[in-house]
């Protein structure tokens, strides 16, 4: 590719999410549905604004309360600035020069814009916009939403109004669909295929047609029989008028695709949950991105079950709690010593014993998450990219202060440092209601101390 590819961060020095956030112009948050892409996208844009950048988050379908917090309740596809006064009022200040903008993607609006732009004449544009089939098809053909998202991204980036655009990708079942979709759409609009549809297929006999054409004729006749002539006629008309747009669409799609490969401008942020299937999907997606030559910045694992035992830093690695988790005898010992500590208080005893049991329940979840994420983390670290974990909070994040609090997990050093020595000194652990889930080291020795706990 271009010389920009050479500026890719080297594998030797790990590039933090903080650095990525400060240096790139576009972050693409991608991952399978239901992992919290929208929240992570909004938190990243806010963090950038707090660092003095003009940031815009481009989202698809935010939770109502999040949309309310950002002030983008209504559709329209136009970005809006989140009132800095409103931000200050919630205790979230921006650095000088920083601003936060948000936009709810409007697929239909984006397509209408493209039609107006690429149609040969206003008359052609009008015919397309009024076509019954077009009105139905927009937003429904596989890939139209994805196409619209990347298109909007391209437009916003080109406008120069923002230092950073964070794109929250549409909720596809598989993360990779986002990348394949625009190509599917342009393939679909490919002129060479369209000609089959505009061919007069009720030619008598079919003399003089090649085999492929005869086949197409057969298929069309058959479709006609099954679905009815009217339907095909509408489809036919749609293709006829849309054909004139193909060149413009394709050129635009190629430009978008070129932008996506610029390592100096774009970074993909993989967002995942700690569930086994989802992580497997993310690992696959990461490989796929690399194969396609697209720049992966790193990954954010969202809603990781907090590890209340923590790492060696808390000194619980081989204490009574850890021992009782693996041995019946040690559990009886623990129960006995709790009973002895407060012999006169049966209620407190019962509360403590229930808390111990609850503690083990959560440990099972935390260990499983760790196990699922280990491979992904190792991969990313090995190639000098970031890996961050956000713990599962007790409540949903949907307001500005909530988004600001995510900064700590996304960006701060103490919370997710790859170094094993510094993680021991996380005094931060006492402040949060959730675990520090501190280190994300894959070494396994820290957690391995009580590693015998059954995770099945």
């Amino acid at each position, binding site marked *: 590719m271009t010389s920009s590819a050479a500026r890719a961060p080297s594998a030797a020095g790990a590039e933090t999410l903080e650095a990525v956030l400060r240096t790139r112009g576009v972050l693409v948050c991608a991952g399978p549905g*239901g992992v919290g892409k929208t929240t992570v996208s909004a938190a990243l844009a806010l963090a950038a604004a707090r660092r003095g950048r003009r940031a815009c988050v481009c989202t698809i379908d935010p939770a109502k309360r999040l949309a309310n917090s950002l002030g983008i309740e209504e559709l329209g596809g136009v970005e809006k600035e989140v009132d800095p006064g409103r931000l200050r009022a919630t205790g979230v200040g921006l650095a000088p020069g920083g601003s936060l903008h948000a936009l709810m993607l409007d697929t239909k609006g984006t397509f209408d814009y493209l039609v107006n732009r690429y149609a040969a004449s206003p008359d052609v544009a009008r015919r397309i916009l009024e076509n019954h089939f077009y009105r139905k098809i927009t937003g429904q053909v596989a890939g139209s939403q994805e196409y619209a998202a990347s298109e909007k991204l391209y437009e916003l980036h080109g406008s120069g109004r923002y230092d950073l655009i964070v794109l929250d990708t549409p909720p596809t079942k598989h993360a990779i669909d986002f990348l394949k979709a625009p190509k599917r759409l342009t393939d679909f609009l490919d002129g060479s295929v369209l000609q089959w549809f505009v061919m007069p297929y009720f030619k008598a006999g079919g003399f003089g047609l090649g085999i492929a054409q005869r*086949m197409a004729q057969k298929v069309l006749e058959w479709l006609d029989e099954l679905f009815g002539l009217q339907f095909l006629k509408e489809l036919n008309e749609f293709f006829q008028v849309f054909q004139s747009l193909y060149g413009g669409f394709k050129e635009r799609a190629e430009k978008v695709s070129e932008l996506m490969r610029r390592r100096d401008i774009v970074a993909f942020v993989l967002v995942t949950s700690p569930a*086994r299937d989802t992580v497997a999907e993310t690992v696959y997606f990461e490989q796929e991105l690399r194969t396609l030559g697209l720049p992966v910045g790193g990954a954010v694992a969202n809603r990781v079950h907090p590890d209340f035992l923590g790492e060696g830093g808390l000194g619980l690695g081989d204490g009574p709690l850890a021992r009782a988790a693996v041995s019946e005898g040690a559990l009886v010992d623990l129960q006995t010593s709790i009973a002895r500590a407060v012999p006169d208080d049966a209620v407190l005893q019962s509360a403590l014993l*229930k*808390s111990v049991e609850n503690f083990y329940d959560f440990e099972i979840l935390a260990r499983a998450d760790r196990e699922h994420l280990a491979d992904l983390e190792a991969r990313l670290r090995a190639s000098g990219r970031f890996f961050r974990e956000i713990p599962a909070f007790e409540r949903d994040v949907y307001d500005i202060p909530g988004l600001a609090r995510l900064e700590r997990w996304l960006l701060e050093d103490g919370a997710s440092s790859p170094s094993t020595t510094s993680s021991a000194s996380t005094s931060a652990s006492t402040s949060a209601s959730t675990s520090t889930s501190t280190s994300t080291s894959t070494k396994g020795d820290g957690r391995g101390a009580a590693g015998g706990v059954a995770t099945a």
Partner: protein
Amino acid sequence: MSIFDHRLIINSGKGGTGKTTISAALAVIAAARGLRVLLVELDTRDRFGPLFGVAPVGYEVRDLRPGIQAINLDPHLVMVDFFKTHVKVKRIYKQIVESRIWQYFYEAAPGLKELILMGKIWRLVGERSFFGGRPTYDCVIVDAPATGHGFSLLNVPQAAYETLFGPMKKNAEKIRDMVRDPKTTVLNIVTLPEEMPVNEAVELHRQARDTLKVAQGVLFMNAIYPPLLDPAEAKALEGLGPAGGPASGPSADGNERRARVAAAVGGEPALEALVRCARSREERAAMGERYSARIREEVPLPFVPVPFVFDADFDVGTLTAVARSLERAFGVPAPHAKRTAAP
């Protein structure tokens, strides 16, 4: 009327709410009632196989355990099937399916994929054994796609009926009538005690009522954390006070007590982790109650809470646990259900 009296049970809700687990657990308890069940998953990597601890399920009806079978409807294969039925000459359907023109048509025609899937479900529901004409399945349980797509799936027969002509219009009408027949079909909604899943559940309930006109069964509130402590216990735990209070003075007794408890569990950090973890659990339980209250207000369906299962992996153990809690909600199985008793 119990949901098991319907021949077609559809479960939908936001992605990640546990539709697959609920569908599988419903199959387990339907089978326990003597019903022959078919579990259906759509356009996805198989998840029933791992959940039942057996080999992956493909596009061929397979036994998962006695009384429970499953099929994974890959749209492409369903489409080939569809052609086999509608195109008499074998050589031709292959050519059609493989032709680019068909593939583009398939991509372009909104809802065609869903229509073909619904057609397949319609055929499965109507399938009868060769002799006697008894239905092959008492209960077809569909693990439907997430809310938006689930809605399109159920809405497509009506949409197709309005747009299409020819034989497909007739087909669409038959499928729509099946979906709207309250004796045949029931839709259950699965949600979680969180903001987005609850919002989507409310929306799906309204769409089902106003647009789909499909009978609705129950609302499953999945993965609710049961409260850990009773109020007296919670008070006792909080009564331990904060760490590092003064060693003498009015609260010295309390501090001494806390120190003893801390020593028993392995030190102050361990005690703190225990308490924090318990608090976190209580907050989650409170959230479950809040969202349960809200959805019961907004969605007037029978409410079935499903407790969170502390399990590292979603496997047979999880399935058994969920099935057990559903069984409690649905009551003791009848010794023999009426449809199986009938010849």
